[in-house]
Structures are given as structure tokens and as C-alpha cells.
């Protein structure tokens, strides 16, 4: 304890130097707190942007459809099945979907679109798409009655490309499950801007029943998209759903075992549905260790320099201390304590400042559009329109200071060892 006291008093002796070092350390820690909070927010936005709008965090398909999507690779969803899935811990909602590809357009213009047949209410519970309407409205709860055209909601960009808006007619032409050609008249009731490029550019939402009719898929679906409470526990939730349904989590081509039955149901979390996105996110979430390395290296060198300098200045003093009986171990501890106190104190200040700024960006948000020319920042098909919010997690607040204390310990070792090895007589005499 006495060494700690002496250590702190020693630090106070050269306030300028200690203060500057402290500032450097605090700045490094504050920066790391902010970076981690930013990364958490960014990763969350990416995952949400990639999964929430379109896929959900967990999906169920037939193994055959998961391997190669084909219009005939469908399955039946019963009310009990929907209830079972909704009852699984961590599940928010589930949306049964028919997924088709077809030609959508009119006499002047057409393009290939993805047609999602959805239950308007369940889709609204599962994804935020209905909230992203920019013109018109979302699908009404019940399909339009024949001979009224079937209602569709279009991605905004697709609507622009086809030059249609709410009230306009469209024709859909597609290959149905039985190999025949389905065609029908559609009416645009709304357009959506989701920030998900694939949805905005090429997706058409229509009533589940309408899509089933056009594609000759009576009572069938291709996909059950499931929203979960925790993005990062999608894998565990998928496992629970698979158990509840008696379904599998291994695809046709996964693993070494025999190929799975094509008709069997396959439950997959988003990292398996969007593997490239998952890899990119894993990589990014690890990349801040490089930032750690760079920032903390600078801080560590500063700390080392301070400690070495201060030890050298006090060399004669240390010689006297040892001459009157201070043990080398105590000397070692005293110097090390100085480093640790610097690290911990700087860390505390840094954590406080960093957390404050992060909290600000978590509440007010950060405008990423500042970094681009055209007002919208898009990355891997996810648009960050408006603001991105940092997330102040306990990890963001605690990890940087803990790592800093460790760095301070390592940086203090060398000056401490050097001081502990002083030979009193020549040191006092100024000969060493």
C-alpha cells in the first residue's frame, strides 16, 4: 500500500508530464469506446438492413428450394405450424411467402421482378416494409375481388423504371408450378423505399392468395420468414424452431452425410442465408482490434517514455531508498503502480468522455450521408439513409479501459525492472 501512495505522490511531482500522458491515455480510451459503440451500431444497422427488410433473421424452406429455388419446391404451412413457430422463445413473428420470378410491366416497358406473395398482416408483423410506403398504401388485409385487378406494392426504383405509380395497371407473366404460364392484371396500390436495394429495385408484393392463384400453388408457400428478438442469437433461435417443428438445420449439400430429402423442411439463420454478408460482418467486427493495436501502441510508447524518464530522473533518490533498505521487489512494485495508476486514471477519464460522446451519438445519431456526395450512403445493398445510431454496450464501455490497464502494466514493466535492479552505491555516487 505504501508503494501505491508513494507512486501517486510521485506522479503528482511532475504534474505537466503526468497530465499529458494521462491525457493521451484518456484520449485513446475515449476513442476506442466510441469506435466500439460505432461498430456495434453499424453492424446492427447492417444486419437489420440486410435481414429485417427482406429475409427476416430465420427462414424455413424445403431443402430443395434452399439449394435451388424453383417454383414447384413449395410446402404447406398449417395454422398449427405458424402457431408453433410463433410460440418459440425469441420469435417475434413469422410471415409465410410465395416467391416467384416473372415478367412485370405493360405494353411499353417491362422487367423481370421478384414477386413476393405475402399475408399483408403477418408480413407487417415480421418486416418493416409496410412502414416504408412512400406513395399510396400497403396491401389491404383481403385480396381484391375478381374482376378487380390484383393489388401490388412495388419497390420505388422498380416503379420508377416501369413509370407507374399508385392507380396504374401492370401485367404479370410467369411460369407457374405446373409448368404452365400464369398471367394476370395487377394494380399498383403503393410503392416502398426500404433501403434494401434488391427490394427497392425488383420486388413486387402481392397477396399470398393472389400469388398462389397466378402460380398454381394452391395452399402452398416457398418460405416462412421469421423475425427474432435478438439478431445475434438467430442461430440458437433457428435451432429451437427446428426442434419444435421436427425440421432439420442441414441443407441438401451440407455436411458429409447422405443428401437430405429435398422435401424436408430446413430452418436456417441469417448467417447461412446471407453468408457473404455474415463473413463481411464478422471481419468488420474483428477489425477494431487493429485500431486497438495502433491507438494503444502510441499510448503505450508515451507511457513507457514517461515512466522511463521519471525513473531516470529519480535514479539517485532510488539509490538512497535502496541504500536505506528498500527491497528491489518493493521498488519494482512502486514504479509499476505508477504506470497502472496512470493507465487506470486515464482510462476512467477516457471511458467517461468516450461514453458521453457515444451516448450522444446513440441518442441523436450520426449522419453518414455527410461522407457521400449524393445524400445516401449505401453499402452491400443496405442504404443508410438518415442517421445511424451508435450503441453504448457494457462491452464498449469496459473493454477499452481493461485493455488499457493491461497495456499500462506491460509498458510499466521495463522501467520497473530497470529501477529494481539498481546498484545503490554507484547510483548514489552518480557513477551509473
Amino acid at each position, binding site marked *: 500500500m505504501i508503494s501505491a501512495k508513494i507512486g501517486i505522490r510521485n506522479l503528482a511531482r511532475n504534474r505537466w508530464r503526468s497530465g499529458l500522458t494521462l491525457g493521451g491515455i484518456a484520449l485513446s480510451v475515449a476513442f476506442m469506446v466510441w469506435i466500439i459503440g460505432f461498430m456495434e451500431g453499424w453492424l446492427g444497422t447492417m444486419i437489420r438492413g440486410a435481414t429485417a427488410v427482406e429475409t427476416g433473421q430465420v427462414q424455413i424452406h424445403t431443402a430443395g428450394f434452399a439449394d435451388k429455388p424453383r417454383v414447384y419446391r413449395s410446402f404447406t404451412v398449417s395454422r398449427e405450424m405458424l402457431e408453433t413457430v410463433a410460440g418459440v422463445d425469441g420469435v417475434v413473428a413469422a410471415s409465410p411467402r410465395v416467391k416467384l420470378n416473372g*415478367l412485370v410491366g405493360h*405494353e411499353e*416497358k417491362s422487367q423481370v421482378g421478384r414477386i413476393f406473395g405475402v399475408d399483408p398482416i403477418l408480413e407487417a408483423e415480421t418486416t418493416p416494409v409496410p412502414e416504408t410506403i412512400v406513395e399510396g398504401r400497403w396491401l389491404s388485409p383481403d385480396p381484391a375481388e375478381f374482376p378487380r385487378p390484383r393489388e401490388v406494392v412495388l419497390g420505388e426504383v422498380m416503379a420508377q423504371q416501369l413509370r407507374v405509380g399508385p392507380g396504374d395497371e401492370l401485367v404479370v407473366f410467369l411460369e407457374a408450378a405446373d*409448368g404452365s404460364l400464369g398471367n394476370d392484371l395487377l394494380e399498383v396500390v403503393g410503392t416502398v423505399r426500404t433501403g434494401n436495394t434488391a427490394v427497392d429495385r425488383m420486388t413486387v408484393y402481392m397477396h399470398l392468395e393472389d400469388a398462389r392463384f397466378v402460380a398454381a400453388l394452391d395452399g402452398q408457400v416457398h418460405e416462412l420468414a421469421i423475425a427474432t428478438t435478438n439478431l445475434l442469437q438467430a442461430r440458437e433461435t433457428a435451432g429451437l424452431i427446428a426442434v419444435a417443428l421436427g425440421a432439420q438445420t442441414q441443407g441438401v449439400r451440407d455436411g458429409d452425410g447422405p443428401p437430405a430429402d429435398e422435401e424436408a423442411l430446413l430452418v436456417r439463420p441469417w448467417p447461412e442465408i446471407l453468408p457473404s454478408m455474415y463473413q463481411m460482418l464478422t471481419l468488420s467486427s474483428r477489425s477494431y482490434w487493429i485500431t486497438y493495436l495502433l491507438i494503444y501502441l502510441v499510448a503505450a510508447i508515451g507511457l513507457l517514455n514517461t515512466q522511463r524518464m521519471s525513473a531516470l530522473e529519480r535514479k539517485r533518490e532510488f539509490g538512497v531508498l535502496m541504500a536505506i533498505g528498500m527491497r528491489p521487489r518493493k521498488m519494482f512494485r512502486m514504479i509499476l503502480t505508477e504506470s497502472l495508476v496512470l493507465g487506470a486514471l486515464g482510462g476512467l477519464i477516457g471511458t467517461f468522455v468516450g461514453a458521453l460522446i457515444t451516448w450522444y451519438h446513440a441518442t441523436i445519431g450520426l449522419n453518414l450521408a455527410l461522407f457521400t456526395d449524393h445524400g445516401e450512403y449505401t453499402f452491400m445493398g443496405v442504404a443508410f439513409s438518415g442517421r445511424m445510431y451508435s450503441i453504448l454496450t457494457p462491452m464498449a464501455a469496459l473493454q477499452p479501459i481493461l485493455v488499457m490497464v493491461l497495456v499500462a502494466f506491460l509498458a510499466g514493466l521495463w522501467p520497473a525492472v530497470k529501477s529494481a535492479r539498481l546498484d545503490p552505491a554507484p547510483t548514489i555516487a552518480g557513477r551509473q
Partner: protein
Amino acid sequence: MGAIIMRLMRSVPPGRRILPRLGGVASILLAVSGAVLISPVEAQVPVPDVSRVMDYIDDLYRAQSSYSSMRMTVVRERGTRELELEAWSKGDDETLIVIRSPAREAGTATLRTEDGLWNYAPRADRLIRIPTGLLSDSWMGSHFTNDDLMRETSYLDDYDAVLSLDELAGVTYLKAVLTPKPDAPVVYSEMIWYITTEDWIPYRTEYYDDGNLIRSMTFERIQTISGKKIPMRMIIVPEDEPEERTVVEYLELELDVPVDDEIFTRQGLRRAARG
């Protein structure tokens, strides 16, 4: 759909030459190389002049106008579909094909005019333009492509032909190897036509892309229509799915019959499709 049907539909006015245009020197060189290619066994069948053969093939289905009814059988991995089609053509560009059965698809039609290619959706009672980006996509779920329908010119406009003799399953055929002319807007990097030596009737066509066989078309059931021997059945087999095929068979084929211009308009099409 398919070079031959396509050309039937395209119907070129008589006298217009859509041949590989070879210069005089090239023709002589070709004739010489053709002669060299004849092996002793095949010596009794001389290789005829390439332009005469291609001219003949091109003329085979040529008509000012035509009417036909066809049965198209599409064999896919998951089952077989049988469609009955009715088709009209006039001049270079105008073609209308209407599906008559099965009931679910009856009335679905494809219209080709000089302005483009449309599908007619009978439930919607609307036309939908087929964008140029979809030309290599399947036509009506068959193994034909929209490009087969849409091509404005004969293959012979875009390709140079070299004629030789070759054996296929023990029978000697004239073999025409077609390679694209420089800068020709083509889908295939090479086509090989096998043509009977006596009647100059196409027997088999192979379509290549980058040296790989993509699909083949075989011609069967020769009949005499308007004084010409014409294959009435065509079988197209995609090379990547050898179990699959599309068979088109003429039930009726009339060449140079009167066809009303109006049928290629929106109203006429609608009437024909509902008919």
C-alpha cells in the same frame, strides 16, 4: 422458334437474297477446298456449291405469308406439357402465335411486329413487352428462346458457311459449318447444319457457344407442301438437360395463303386470341 419455324414466320419476299455473301475469289477457294475434302469413299457425292445449298434451305420455308397449326410438346424433368398453337405470318416481321390448349393457357399469345415482341396475357387482356434483355430466355416455357422468334434476319445474314461432307450414324450428309461474320450480333459462336445430300433437307442443326454444344435440333417427318419437301417435326434438345426436349409438329401448314394485316394489331390479336 427454331431456325426453320422462325424463318417460316419471318417469310421473306421472294427474290431477296439472304445468303452468305461470298466474294468470287472466296467462292472459288471454297469450291477447291470442298473438292479436296471429298474422300475416295464419298467421291460419288460431290460437294455442291455452298450458296446453292444455303439458298435452297433458306427458300424451303420461305413464303409471303403462312398459316399453321402446331402441337408443341415440352418434356421437362418434372413432367410433360402439350400445347396446341396456331400461327400466322406475313412479310418480314409480322408473326402471331396463339396458344389454343390447354384451357389454362388458351389465348396466351406472342406478337411480333417490326416494333418489337409482346406477350398477350389473356386474363389481363393486356400486352406486355418482352424486353431485349430477355431474348435468350425461354419462350412460353419451352426450349425455344425469345431470340428464336425475334431474330430479324436469317442466320445466313450473320454467318459465313463452309460446306463439306460428313457422316452421321452411318449416313453421309452435307455439313455446313456456320461461323459468325465480324461484328455480327449473334448468340452462337458456331452452328453446324447437317443436310441430306439428295434433297437438301435439313436433318440436324447444332448450336455452339465457345466451342460447347448448347442445343441441337433434329428434323423429321418430311412432307411435300406447296411442292417443297419440308420436315414437319422438329425436336430441340438442350445439351445440359439431355432428358428434356421440346417437340414441335405441324398439324397444318399452308404457305402463301391470304393473311389479314389486321391480325397483327392489338384488336386483331385480341380477336384471334379469343377465337
